[in-house]
């Protein structure tokens, strides 16, 4: 009766043997399943960029963008094994954006902002259908987005398949979009009349539920853009002249993602960590690390998050150019500069039987890197309020 087997080995063996048992894993940790009833959610967000400091601006301190975003999400089951989802987004933007950078008296970069206040409206609709079966989910979606100077039409196919025990998921997605831009013209400024671009992308992902408290997922994606990829509203200072922002007509992007979801039952806390490596043919390389914690207290959920981002600049980015480049590509867009950013977020959510209300806050600060950081880099605050409800 005396055995040499250790208790800890037995614990591992029996825990492993119990893990695949079908009745034990809640559906929430299992595969995506068809939604049970109609659900809807609405979110209102207010995004405010910090003002451009007078010390770095050619025209004194300037308010940058304020953006109001309204999002409506509707989902309903159909035909027994399908679901239709409709997402509507409406954004209103107002403010000024970085226009060009010139060398100051001491050679320091000075940002000139767009003169007139820009008022913009963007509306987007996404419609998607998903078919659910025991071992798979197949989806197809269309999107259309419009602004006064921009139009985009997109299509997406996705497929997820699940292992018998529903613990492993393989995802594929492909999609593309066709965009056209007809920039608003202004007197005395030469801008392109009408341009277009196309995008094609594909992604593959794998995720596995190791046990009821641990999920790890990895995915890779590739995307290619062709056409007019420059910003028609930005200018670049090149050897004394202001030239239009000019970027290559081809951009290939690759990204690799790892995500880990860990639940700590004794604290009722879920920890999320996400890492992303990104690289593209413009020369931009970035690393993103996101950490989040979600704690349930009764019907309340409190969350805290931090996101760190580190980016290397594009090959053809500089605040300004003393001489011409052989390839003819120039940009002083702060989004292509070398910088790092850190953002902190906090949220609170209250669950009711029929739905939930949530409030989120995010504070984002970016800092330029390299010898002379881009003066257009932005800080922002984001406040959003959301309400969601479902009818089962």
């Amino acid at each position, binding site marked *: 009766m005396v055995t040499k087997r250790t208790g800890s080995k037995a*614990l591992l063996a029996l825990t492993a043997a119990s893990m695949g048992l079908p*009745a034990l894993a*809640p559906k929430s940790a299992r595969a995506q399943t068809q939604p049970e009833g109609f659900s809807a959610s609405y979110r209102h967000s207010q995004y405010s960029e910090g003002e451009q400091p007078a010390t770095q601006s050619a025209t004194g301190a300037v308010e940058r963008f304020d953006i109001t975003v309204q999002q409506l999400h509707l989902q309903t089951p159909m035909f027994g094994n399908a679901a239709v989802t409709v997402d509507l987004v409406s954004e209103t933007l107002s403010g000024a954006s970085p226009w060009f950078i010139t060398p100051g008296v001491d050679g320091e970069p000075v940002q000139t902002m767009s003169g007139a206040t820009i008022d913009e409206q963007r509306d987007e609709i996404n419609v998607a259908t998903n078919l659910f079966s025991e071992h798979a989910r197949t989806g197809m979606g269309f999107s259309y987005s419009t602004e006064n100077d921009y139009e985009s039409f997109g299509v997406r196919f996705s497929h997820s398949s699940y292992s018998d025990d529903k613990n492993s998921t393989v995802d594929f997605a492909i999609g593309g979009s066709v965009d056209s831009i007809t920039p608003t013209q202004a007197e005395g400024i030469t801008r392109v009349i009408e341009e277009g671009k196309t995008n094609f992308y594909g992604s593959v992902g794998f995720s596995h539920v190791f046990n009821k408290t641990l999920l790890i997922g990895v995915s890779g994606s590739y995307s290619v853009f062709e056409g007019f990829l420059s910003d028609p509203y930005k200018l670049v200072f090149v050897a004394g002249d202001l030239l239009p922002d000019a970027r290559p007509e081809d951009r290939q992007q690759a990204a690799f993602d790892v995500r880990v979801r860990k639940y700590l039952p004794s604290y*009722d806390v879920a920890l999320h960590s996400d890492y992303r490596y990104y690289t593209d043919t413009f020369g931009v390389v970035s690393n993103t690390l996101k950490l989040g914690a979600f704690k*349930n207290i*009764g*019907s309340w959920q409190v969350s805290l998050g931090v996101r760190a981002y580190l980016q290397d600049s594009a090959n053809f980015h500089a605040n300004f150019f003393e001489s011409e480049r052989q390839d003819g590509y120039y940009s002083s867009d702060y989004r292509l500069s070398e910088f790092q950013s850190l953002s902190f977020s906090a949220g609170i959510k209250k669950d009711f039987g029929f739905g939930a209300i949530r409030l989120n806050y995010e504070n984002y600060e970016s800092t330029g890197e390299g010898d002379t950081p881009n003066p257009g880099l932005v800080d922002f605050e984001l406040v959003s309020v959301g309400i969601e409800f479902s009818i089962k």
Partner: protein
Amino acid sequence: MTMRFSRSFKAMGSLCELQIYTHEKSRSEEIFEDLIGEVSRLEDKYSRYKSTSVISQINAAAGQGAPVYVDSETVQLLDYADTLFAESDGMFDITSGVLREVWDFRSAKLPSAAEVRSVLPLIGWQNVDRGDDQIYLPQQGMQIDFGGFAKEYAVDALAARCIDHDIQHGIVNLGGDVRVVGPHPDGTPWRVGIQHPRAPAKAISVVEVSHGAVATSGDYERFMLIDGKRYCHLLNPETGRSIHPQFASVSIMADSCLVAGSFSTLAMLKGDDAAAWIESTGLPHLLVDQSLRLSGTVHAESDTGETTRR
């Protein structure tokens, strides 16, 4: 505003109780119906007393020359039983139930050596033929049963269903095997009574549980006293004799009730090294020895209010 709702019922030969916090009574009724439906499903599927159960079909086909095909849930439970057999060095054997035919605990009479010898050849999980989705008991009279873990499995299955119903605060108790879905809404743990091994319907201790499961195995479930000696329902599959466990009961806490229950049974089946063996698993536990002394790592109160902690 969530309220607490509870439902008691009999299933799997035990008194069962469900308690959940939810917003309205009608919702709680729906959830209770669903959970009781799940217990019935498992009982119908795995009870050896129901002739249509998967277990009865497997047992009826013993020695008949053809295997029985089973579904993936059954395959995985058989795999679990296989692991239990291996990890216990054969002491936890789901083919040993045939010993009940010679051990009648209501008779107050020990089986004779010849009677025990007559059924021993029918015991031995290692002799069972298994394919991917099939099982065959090679000898007529051989039988298996999931009595050693079916109730614990059901407890976990109900807890998983509670989570599917968005229940964040609740407790599932099937005959003393307990799984907590989450603490009371104010964060206080559930107080779970541990059965007194010598006084039915009385708790010897209370443990506090916010998450996970507690399961207890004891020598008091079925037994007979002969010449002052206690013969309990735990039988050694090799000798066919009753085991005289070191502990009157062993309670184990683990994430799942299935694992907690398996370890409480394994600890009862172990010999003198049971305490050290349980210690080596790292699982919180409460041991009650034959003199009713409490020990273990669980912060527990005896019914006199005395607290023991190692």
